């Protein structure tokens, strides 16, 4: 029997209301067109490609350097002493070290350390929202004034695999704060998690495996619609109450279809749908859509975000933009500034940048 989500107190709400004090995005400069991947592996067949192009990190970039820049953007908007941040939590499936936290290096670079909680979170593409929900609890309980949550990835697909077209680099950082200081209030979150083997990577393996068509209906669509539907039911809202909606975006079609299933129109999802031009940024994918929305939204606008991570689970967030957005959002580079900074590369340059050429 289905739970009655309307009466069951399932929503996650901290004791003290929490919001986003500052946010920042990062997308690296280089773009690999999907037609380049098709040229190499499909004899140039460019039919039905999943995206236009994906963002590729330079050879000197990784999840740590990208997290540092996104966090610096979040700090510029937050305009606080970094020492007041009491947690640095990074969600990623591409931490540069197997053992040694990315978060210690990011914390040091932005001037938060040493009195911080620091940790790296893993949950495929929802590791970023997992870190955000934890940060909401950390701030909302009163333990910390501010907490920094990041979702960032430099995703890789096996050469020639379907994932190689879309596996991209980018993400976003959020400083969570008491709601009365925030540019956007997080009204509630709600998560839906099951054991679903749609996508995985074992230790020492360079590339992930995926359950082919199994990744669609029982994984992506099931989890996002469950989380999104029940969030709206429990909040007593419908799609019409939200100005914007943003979903995990592994390609162009999945988020468009899931938006339709939940009752959202193109007008509501287009601002946050970045995968056609930057690819799937994994732990960064849903939340960099959110930064693009915050760059444009007006006070009072309501946003529904639903992430998805393979394995599998979704975190839904119900967010309301406040007046403070107007004075803060121009203090750092916007998501579209990074998207506009674009240098197209070919497959050979891509191979070199990804460090897959053996030098000795």
């Amino acid at each position, binding site marked *: 029997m289905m739970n009655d989500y309307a009466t069951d107190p399932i929503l996650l709400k901290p004791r003290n209301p929490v919001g986003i004090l500052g946010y920042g995005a990062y997308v690296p400069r280089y773009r690999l067109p999907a037609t380049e991947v098709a040229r190499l592996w499909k004899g140039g067949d460019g039919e039905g490609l999943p995206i236009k192009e994906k963002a590729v990190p330079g050879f000197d970039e990784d999840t740590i350097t990208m997290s540092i*820049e996104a966090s610096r953007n979040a700090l510029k908007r937050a305009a606080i002493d970094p020492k007041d941040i009491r947690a640095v939590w990074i969600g990623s499936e591409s931490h540069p070290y197997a053992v040694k936290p990315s978060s210690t290096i990011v914390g040091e670079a932005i001037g938060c350390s040493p009195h911080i909680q620091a940790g790296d979170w893993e949950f495929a593409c929802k590791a970023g929202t997992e870190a955000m929900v934890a940060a909401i609890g950390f701030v909302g309980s009163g333990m910390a004034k501010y907490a920094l949550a990041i979702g960032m990835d430099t995703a890789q697909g096996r050469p020639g695999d379907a994932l190689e077209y879309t596996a991209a680099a980018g993400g976003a950082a959020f400083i969570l704060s008491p709601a009365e200081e925030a540019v956007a209030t997080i009204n509630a979150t709600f998560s839906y998690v099951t054991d679903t083997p749609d996508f995985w990577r074992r230790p020492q393996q360079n590339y992930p495996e995926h359950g082919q068509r199994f990744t669609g209906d029982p994984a992506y669509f099931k989890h996002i619609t469950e989380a999104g539907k029940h969030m709206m039911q429990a909040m007593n809202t419908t799609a019409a109450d939200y100005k914007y909606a943003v979903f995990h975006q592994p390609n162009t079609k999945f988020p468009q279809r899931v938006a339709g299933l939940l009752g959202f129109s193109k007008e509501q999802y287009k601002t946050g749908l970045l995968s056609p031009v930057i690819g799937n940024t994994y732990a960064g994918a849903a939340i960099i859509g959110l930064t693009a929305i915050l760059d444009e939204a007006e006070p009072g606008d309501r946003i529904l975000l639903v992430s998805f991570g393979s394995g599998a689970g979704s975190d839904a967030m119900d967010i309301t933009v406040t007046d403070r957005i107007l004075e803060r959002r121009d203090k750092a580079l916007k998501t579209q*500034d990074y998207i506009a900074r674009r240098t197209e590369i070919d497959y050979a340059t891509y191979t070199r940048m990804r460090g897959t050429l053996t030098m000795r």
Partner: protein
Amino acid sequence: MEVPRHWRLKKQRYALVGEVCPHCSSKIFPPRDVCPYCGGEAKTQFSFSGRGQVYSFTQMTNVPTGYEQSAPYTMALVQLEEGPVVTAQLTDLGEQHVEIGMPVEMVTRKIRTDMDDRGIIIYGYKFRPVMQA
């Protein structure tokens, strides 16, 4: 380079943290605890803005061990807006042409890794063409 030395240098490397002289207000980078301008003791930490301009530059094609992956690259003398000149690699140039006086901004990037894939990754400052309007 040994691990302890990287560890001591991390603050200045990651975030351009130098010093300001309490006597003559000069900004000092790299930190040296003595003001090179007035000779006074200068131990007050100062975070540089990271903005500056290219003072001089050269293209590196023959590169030191550990930097082969990124060759060829451009090394520059960057004059920070607070005064000091630092030597650093330019990055994210794309097709952009480098010239003297070009405005640049600091980013923290991977500099190199020790011992192939087994050693620590060294992060530090580089400069890119300015993005912020």
